[in-house]
């Protein structure tokens, strides 16, 4: 596997040319900086999406980029998601590296056909003669009090499709590096962004060494049980671990999966072999999900290490509910801790 090393290239100049870094930034700003760095590095990188130009995107992730790079590199597209991905495929064949923004998770389905039938398969169909360096950015997940179709977690559809790579960032540092790594990859990458965490802040050190794109990472070591999670659930799980330590004296190990296809489960296996109890947390419905896949593979790889069945704490297998119910729908700190108790009580 080739991992892209973005450090070997010139860096962003957005206030960081002196090496001091931008200081504390939000996930949204980190994505903006990452996109800017990728565009400065490679003139073939172009952004496509609805309202991403003059407006800067409904979440302002592309704020200021059209002003600085022009309308031919930041395209305010027609309101047509299949068109966004379909045209991006043609541009990729032409040698461009399109980064598409799907405005909200629930709007990706008009593009599903192009993603599954063409984007995912062209490298295979042509046996490597046609590469598909296309990134599809998707703000995903709930918790923002929105109407229907604005709070979904469709990542499993894409993880289930051969030919696509799927990642989810959970913090500003990863957001900054992972978006650049995804853009530099010659493969189609579905890039899921935790929209309810866009405003979470962290120190961004531009001189740090980024982890490889397709790697998971232990964020908090522990001994009582392991929590595997991704995207918006990472913060919830870290808070749950903090609470468990304070209230119960339990040390929960928290792993940010980061890559959903392919999964990087070695750190999870290592953790389970050492601790013996695993809880997988995600907002997506649990049936046939990323969480299910992890449960299946952990029981295969760590059967004799398990002290309890793998517990999944997920969204329910219902359509996303009206927003007044989303606090109940989304796994929160209490439900995560309840799942941990289930595992410990086995």
């Amino acid at each position, binding site marked *: 596997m080739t991992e892209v090393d973005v450090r070997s290239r010139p860096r962003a100049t957005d206030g960081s040319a002196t090496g001091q870094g931008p200081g504390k930034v939000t996930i949204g700003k980190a994505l903006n900086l990452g996109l800017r760095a990728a565009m400065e590095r490679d003139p073939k990188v172009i952004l496509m999406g609805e309202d991403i130009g003059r407006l800067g995107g409904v979440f302002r992730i592309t704020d200021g980029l059209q002003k600085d790079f022009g309308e031919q590199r930041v395209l305010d597209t027609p309101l047509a998601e299949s*068109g966004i991905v379909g*045209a991006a495929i043609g541009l990729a*064949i032409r*040698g461009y590296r399109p980064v598409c923004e799907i405005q909200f998770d629930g709007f990706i389905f008009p593009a599903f*056909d*192009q993603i599954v039938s063409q984007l995912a398969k062209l490298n295979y*169909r042509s046996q490597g003669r046609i590469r598909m360096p296309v990134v599809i950015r998707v703000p995903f997940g709930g918790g923002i009090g929105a109407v229907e179709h604005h709070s979904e977690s469709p990542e499993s559809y894409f993880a289930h499709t051969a*030919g696509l790579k799927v990642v989810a960032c959970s913090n500003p540092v990863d957001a900054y590096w992972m978006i650049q790594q995804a853009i530099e990859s010659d*493969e189609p990458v579905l890039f899921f962004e935790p929209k309810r965490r866009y405003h979470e802040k962290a120190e961004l050190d531009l001189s740090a060494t980024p982890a490889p794109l397709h790697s998971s990472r232990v964020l908090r070591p522990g001994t009582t049980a392991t929590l595997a999670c991704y995207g918006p659930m990472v913060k919830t799980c870290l808070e749950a671990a903090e609470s468990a330590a304070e209230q119960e004296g339990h040390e929960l190990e928290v792993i940010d999966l980061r890559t959903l296809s392919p999964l990087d489960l070695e750190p999870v296996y290592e953790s389970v072999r050492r601790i013996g109890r695993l809880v997988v947390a995600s907002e997506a419905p649990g049936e046939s999900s990323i969480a299910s896949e992890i449960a299946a593979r952990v029981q295969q790889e760590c059967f004799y290490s398990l002290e309890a069945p793998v517990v999944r704490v997920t969204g329910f297998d219902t359509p996303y509910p009206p927003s007044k119910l989303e606090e109940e729908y989304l796994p929160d700190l209490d439900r995560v801790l309840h799942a941990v108790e289930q595992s410990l009580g086995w």
Partner: protein
Amino acid sequence: MSSPEYWTKPQPPDAAGSESPPGSPPAATAARPTAEQVIAGLRATSEGGPDLVQLLTPEGERVAHPHFDIDITPEELRGLYRDMVLVRRADRESNALQRQGQLGIWVPLLGQEAAQIGAGRAMRPRDMAFPSYREHGVAWCRGIDPTELLGIFRGTDHGSWDPVATRFHPYTIVIGNQCLNAVGYAMGQRFDGRIGDGHDSADAEATVAFFGDGATSQGDVNEAFVWGAVYDAPVVFFCQNNQWAISEPMERQSRIPLYQRASGYGFPGIRVDGNDVLATLAVTRWALEECRSGNGPVLIEAFTYRMDAHTTSDDPSRYRLADELEAWKLKDPIERVKAYLHRQQWADRDYFEEVDRESDALAARLREFCQRMPVPSADRMFSEVYANGSPVVAAQRDEFLTYLSQFEQTGGER
């Protein structure tokens, strides 16, 4: 009578010749065309309409056109004739290979030779083509040998030609997807400065998206029209209206002639006699030049006829009458060129016999090649799923190949 409810349940006339009452269940073998299908099919044989661009009549008479005339040398016309004969022969041979079990399926182009050769020969090497799956004639024009098409239909690959070198994209089987991909590619041509005023016309470029009448109902094709228009993309939308989307005639797809749809998107639409290779060549050349000079897109509706089944798995007798085919045979794309070459004394019997011999040789080579095509080894299944590989796929490949090797070692069979 033309309500969708009636259409989706074709009901054959009963023994007395009257139709079953509405709502009665369809007969177990609804195997004959309905009155609507017959009328729709026969109507198309006489309706090119006044806007149809034609330079060579079905009888082989050269006619003038105020906008789209063309100077053609005897050598060029002989070349177009040869292209069409060879492509038809390759098509018929491949169809026969399917019947003999050498191919899993074949998608015939019979009857559409002029549309495809006219469009294909209008393209320059730098232009890019995005085909559907019936574009064997365009493939021929892009320098792709008919043997390179066989793998898809024999099941040994998903297309073996080099789409970068030939500028002929892999066949797209999902209806209409390729039109958006073509627009994206054409947008790239524009972004790269390959079109427009003041540009050295020698390296100007354009793109052709090939699709059929059925595809015009797809969202992707309509989105492609929108995108092509708003980005001034140098793309020719080349629609071969062969009158039938499997069993559904044109009136299931559109109230108005397809070329007229273009005006709604803001670019020109032209209906050309798709059985007239000269007219198709002239109109496509013009359209490509419009695109290269920054005036794209253009929609061309090549009015033609699918003389064979949709695929070798299809049975057209269930939805159209043989009379229709007989009527279209009179408009055959090859016969009119042969008649014209004769009349102009641009080709003699020796020439026609030479082309026939050449097509015999091509058919023999195709047959020979097909029968010797190797079955790919199991590891091919796991190849190039990802540009950078995947640990999941790699592990599955290794495990499966190890599993297979056990049978090789023991000499046993699975």
